[in-house]
């Protein structure tokens, strides 16, 4: 008698529990879908994000698809590492689930990250950061090497100026060193300068390793300097200069892809295990090739 009742109650209980579970699962799923839009904060290192418009579009696309909300944060002073760390602290305290950063100084940013009371995965753009949840960047050494090889093809004698603004952009260092190695091996003398010099005796070749510097150099060239410029970047301004011949060749990769991958990685770091990221593929684009179909797709975002 007693046993029968227990069996019955167990069976009914199990059935009831199954009903409840099947009813609750959609509820839980819905809660997860709606309730938890991940909040991802994006820390730039510029005072405005006009250099990062395409990157932002990629990020927004990823956020849209993966259920995240983005907060874009700029610095009040360009490349202010302290301010970036302060922003990092504020965002993590403000409840950011993940961070995407273009680090001013990866090491000190990492130190700031470790000082946080809460753990917050951080994906970096442009350069790798130790302890980060991943870096979305091309292989910086390969960028330097390929760009130097592009220069080698055109080289007709003279010294090469390597514009070194690595103080502002940490990824420049490895690109520059790689380029320097390639050039030295080819027996070309090169000089590192922080800014373009006033005197232009025999310096007909200039290499820049960062979009901002590339654009600046291109502008200077338009102002009357004459030199062949090899740079980095894919913004509209740079492609315009490339088309007009102010820039001989650029190493370009898709900012859109970078933004997308960064947010995707950040979301993945929160929701699942972060995957190891492949370095972004980049290509060397010369001025005359910019309208090749593949380069069109790379350089020009589809905005209707």
């Amino acid at each position, binding site marked *: 008698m007693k046993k029968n009742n227990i069996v019955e109650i167990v069976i009914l209980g199990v059935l009831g529990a199954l009903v409840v579970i099947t009813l609750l699962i959609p509820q839980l799923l819905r809660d997860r879908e709606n309730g938890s839009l991940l909040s991802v904060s994006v820390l730039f290192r510029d005072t405005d994000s006009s250099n990062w418009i395409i990157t932002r579009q990629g990020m927004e696309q990823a956020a849209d698809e993966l259920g995240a909300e983005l907060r874009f944060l700029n610095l009040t002073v360009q490349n202010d590492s302290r301010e970036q760390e302060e922003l990092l602290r504020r965002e993590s305290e403000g409840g950011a689930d993940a961070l995407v950063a273009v680090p001013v100084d990866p090491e000190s940013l990492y130190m700031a990250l470790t000082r946080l009371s809460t753990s917050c995965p951080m994906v970096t753009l442009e350069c790798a950061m130790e302890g980060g949840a991943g870096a979305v960047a091309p292989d910086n050494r390969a960028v330097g090497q390929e760009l130097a090889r592009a220069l080698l093809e055109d080289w007709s004698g003279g010294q090469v100026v390597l514009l070194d603004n690595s103080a502002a952009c940490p990824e420049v260092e490895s690109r520059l060193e790689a380029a320097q190695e390639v050039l030295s091996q080819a027996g070309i003398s090169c000089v590192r300068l922080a800014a373009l010099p006033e005197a232009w005796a025999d310096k007909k070749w200039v290499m820049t390793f960062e979009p901002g510097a590339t654009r600046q150099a291109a502008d200077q060239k338009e102002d009357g300097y004459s030199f062949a410029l090899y740079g980095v970047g894919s913004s509209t301004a740079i492609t315009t200069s490339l*088309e007009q011949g102010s820039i001989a060749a650029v190493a370009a990769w898709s900012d859109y892809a970078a933004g997308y991958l960064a947010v995707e990685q950040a979301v993945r770091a929160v929701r699942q295990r972060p995957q190891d990221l492949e370095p972004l593929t980049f290509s060397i684009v010369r001025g005359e090739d910019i309208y090749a179909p593949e380069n069109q797709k790379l350089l020009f975002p589809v905005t209707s």
Partner: protein
Amino acid sequence: MNFFRSLAAQWGERYRKMSIQMVLSLSFTTVAAAGILLMGISLIWRFSAANEQLVAENSQRMLAQANRNLDSYLRRMMRIADTVYYRVIKNTDLAEGSYTDAMGLLYEENRDDLVSLAVFDSEGNLVSAVPLASLKAKADPAGSEWFLAARKNMENLHFSSPHVQNIFDDPDSPYRWVVSLSHHVELTREGVTEGGVLLVDMSFSGIEQVCRDVTLAKGGYLYLIDGSGELIYHPRQQLIYAGLLEENNKVAAGYRDGSHAEKFQGQSRQVTVKTVGYTGWKLVGVAPADSWLASSSQLFLFGLALLLFSIFLMAFLNFLISARISDPIRRLERSVKELERGLEIEVAEGGCYEVQQLGHAIRSMVSTMHHLMDDIIQQEGQKRRSELEVLQSQINPHFLYNTLDSVIWMTESGQQREAVRMVTSLARFFRISLSKGKNMIPLVDELEHARHYMNIQQIRYKNKFTTRIETQEGVEDLYTLKLVVQPILENAIYHGMAGAEDDGEISVIAFREEDDLVIDVADNGMGMPPEVADSLLDEDRPEVHTAGSGTGVRNVHQRIRLTFGERYGLTIRSEPDEGTLVRIRLPALTREGAARCHQGEVL
């Protein structure tokens, strides 16, 4: 294998041992659950089949709709081209006027869909363009794909693949992706016609709008490719261009119109293709095959919940019903069990009609049984009593015959006094024997009876032996079954004394041993071997009707045990040439006890 067999056997055993309620409820529930599940599965199957078809139909319908819209959009573009050509270019001599105003009007009218309108001469020089713009220094219209295509097929309108518009100078406006519509035109300059090319750059937004408004099944989307499979529109075009995503567009270019199933990147999906007229473009609708389950997983789960809930309800009802059926049966079973144990109990009646009837039947059966049992008990008692009576009566004729024989003999030999004594004793003997039909008599009477008997026998055996009858203190008031001592004495005389010398002695001693009354009858006669003594009381011993075969002794033994139980009766100790001691053990009954016992016996 063995394990399974033993498991099956175990379950079979368990099933056989299961209660009726369990069997009912479990089998009902199992059948109901199986039925509901089967129904659910067949419903799901039917539904998904129907849904798949619905998705295909829906895709085709939406695609047809998109196709119509795209067609009308393209037609509008072609009409713009035609209008520019036939209304503007053909009617205007370049030497006298320009196309700009009329083209500007058309451009303003279709500003949302157009990026630019331009006319080039056969060398690729810009003749006119709206919005007003100049050519880039490095622009090479004559080398462009659209220019060459227009020159090649003069009679046709040509739609290019998407490309970045690269010929107009625009200092701040970004590079825009366009689809170029080009057409060979005849320009008139000072009355002379020459070849030229009309370029209509369509913005993506027009095409995007046509395609984006199409809503396919959840998770599905639509993309547009040209004849060679080059993407024109894709909802995630930028991702594809950035190399983060791939689309099966090259393969889709080879599909014929209609629905196809394909597997792309490990995902099976349904692809519907529709070719757009004139351009050779293809609209491709993609619906993931798992979209139904994935998109309506909520619905599916809800259905599952309903299914489970109905099983739950069925089980619930089954348990109630089976409990209702089996509870009365179980109560009945318990009543019967208790009856078995001999308890007097009211048999439960209740439940369904059949069970009620069953209960009723059992109840009447039980009462019949009770009646029968009472009858049997009564009959048994009667039988016993009559048996006893027979046993008692067995004593008398033999003895009476001998005694009367002796009296006759004494009278004849003139021993008047002895004869009188003998007859007196006989009279006393019989009076006590009768005792008004009572079975239980005072011990005193019983011993008196024995004494009279011995008197008679002493006379008969000419005082060959002496008799001693003693009673201890405290036994005088006790009662005993009547006629228990006399057969022992008879036995002692026949077996112990008959062949003995003159100095035979028989003693009867009554004493109390705790709650028992013990009467020892001892003689110093021949005695017997212990085996014989033991067999004397054996009920199963074949009846041997010889004189003094001990029938009397055994009768006494049986009577005592029948009356008082197994504890009581006779014990015989004997040694050859030593004598015999017969001990009669009886309960020590007072007057009341004797009366009760008498009553009980009658019952």
